[in-house]
């Protein structure tokens, strides 16, 4: 168990380090882009309407809603459930736990049920689309990992509950760079390892898409004034 613990902790820190290197590297690439292609600036006005549209784009996935309502239901639910489950898990990383996280626990638990269902729904929808079926291998991998993580999360809740005190001590230890003993639950180890696998594949669109979407909303507005100024 001791060796397993050391390996697991080393893997955790490596993944964590790799995650930040990846983010910083992406930032450097962005920073180094030469901007050789010049764009003539059109309008920089940001109206209240536009802010409302941007909010709808970012938080309600308005663009996806317009383009594909069936996928929107699945995708929006998935992202929301993902965020809520993450939020619910904060109780394992914080000491003391803020009351808002306690208040949100039932919602987080409900999101835990919704998460795998939304994944199956999205996957099924893609499979039944007859023409122009495009499924990226990376997306399949990410979806499968999240499915395994949420399935093992279920099992941890209903089948083989680990010692939550141990789990919390382990997580906080990792965060504080003073690792504790790894909890004695192979199911927890599986759940945790899957999260480690997921991190390097976590799509970077999570960070960049909002910026692109904001520009797109401004561009839509520009289209109305381009030939009318």
């Amino acid at each position, binding site marked *: 168990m001791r060796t397993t613990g050391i390996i697991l902790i080393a893997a955790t820190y490596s993944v964590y380090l790799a995650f930040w290197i990846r983010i910083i590297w992406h930032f450097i690439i962005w920073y180094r882009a*030469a*901007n050789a292609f010049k764009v*003539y600036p059109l309008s920089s006005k940001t109206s209240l309407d536009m802010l409302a549209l941007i909010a709808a784009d970012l938080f309600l996935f308005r*663009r996806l809603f317009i383009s594909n309502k069936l996928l929107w239901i699945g995708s929006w639910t998935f992202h929301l459930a993902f965020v809520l489950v993450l939020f619910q898990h904060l109780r394992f990383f914080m000491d003391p736990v803020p009351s808002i996280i306690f208040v949100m626990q039932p919602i987080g638990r409900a999101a835990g049920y919704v998460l795998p269902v939304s994944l199956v729904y999205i996957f099924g929808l893609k499979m039944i689309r007859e023409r122009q079926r495009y499924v*990226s291998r*990376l997306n399949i991998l990410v979806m499968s990992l999240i499915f395994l993580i949420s399935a093992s999360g279920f099992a941890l809740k209903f089948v083989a509950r680990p010692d939550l005190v141990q789990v919390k001590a382990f997580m906080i230890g990792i965060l504080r760079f003073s690792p504790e003993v790894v909890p004695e639950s192979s199911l927890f180890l599986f759940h945790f390892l899957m999260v480690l696998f997921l991190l390097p594949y976590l799509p970077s669109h999570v960070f960049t898409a909002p910026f692109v979407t904001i520009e797109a909303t401004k*561009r839509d507005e520009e289209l109305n004034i381009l*030939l009318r100024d």
Partner: protein
Amino acid sequence: MSKDRTTHKKRSFIEELTKQQVLEIDACTQCGECLRHCPVQEVSGNLSISPPEKIRMFREFIRATEGLKNWLFGRDVDQKLLEDFTRAVFECTTCGSCSQNCPVGIYTQRLWPVLRKEMVKRGLGPLGQQAEMPAVIEKTGNPYNKPPDQRFSPWFPEGVAISEQADIAYYAGCTGSYEAYPMVRGDVLVLSSIGSPFTTLPPEEEVCCGFPLFITGQHDLLEKLVKRLVNAYQERGVKTLLCSCPCCVNIMVRDWPVFYGKKLPFSIRHITQFVSDALKKGALVITSELNQRVIYHDPCYLSRGVGIMEEPRTILNSIPGITLLEFDRHGLDSRCCGAGGAARKVFQENAMAMGRLTIDEAVSKKADKLILSCPACYEKVNDAMKGHDNQIQIVDIMELLADLIEGCNQ
């Protein structure tokens, strides 16, 4: 094996990109939503040329030159992948349907031409006869290698007065002037009926607007062409430049200021804006009826490109007796007729198949006429109808209007 590897290792793949475009390439979720709207996918079914695949390939290229592994160990770009990508990015019609329907909002209608430019810089593009365009334009002023002095003579209506100096100028464009006579003839007839004095440049001076070069990633001549045109219009005291070609209007309003170096000294308007205004003010009166069902096709660069969708419909609805039909996909969601992005010159089969989809839908909706408002659409859809089972009368919007206005000398 090393011969199979590119010799452009030193050149970075982010040299042509804006910072925003670097974000866009990163932001594609590979959801594949755009595929449902891509006309090239519809006719070819080739997933390897789809937007997410192009973006995935380009990410590989960036990783190969900018990635951490390259920095630590050095990494080559796969030449075969580069060639596949070049073909894919040039097979696209740049119709922008993928941008319009991308849930993230990636501006692919702009991204593809910039990625094409990168491939041109690497000596991999453009493809086929597209590569001859810069030399041909330099020599003749147009991409069709046609005599510059015959730019207007075959179609320009007799008796229409052209002013030396005027607030309004009309730019006919190369495709209209050499490949779609009825369209530009209609433009001039309608303008002359409105009665406001207008000017045009002499045929040898009205050179290419630069769009075919821009869209195929060959930007070297652009500044020269743009400055020549802008200065010539400025000398004529022009305040508003009218044009009917959506591609010309696009580059004029979006990119001419960049190549000119500052704000243009005149405004750009699409001809349908000017004509619908004239109809509203009573400066133009449609005298004849047209008891027919017509269907209007939104050109990609007019609707998604510059947001002109209402004015053509206002004009058509002003025609007494007319029934205006719509394609299932219209306005911002219109489906490319196959003429876009200079791809029609190389990927003929795709272009024909797309053109026929437009014809078939118009026929199935029992339209008497298919109304277009783009010279490239006009040329391509007419081409696609040759030898096709379904036939329909194809008319440009100004050609139709000129027919219905009293005093328009046909």
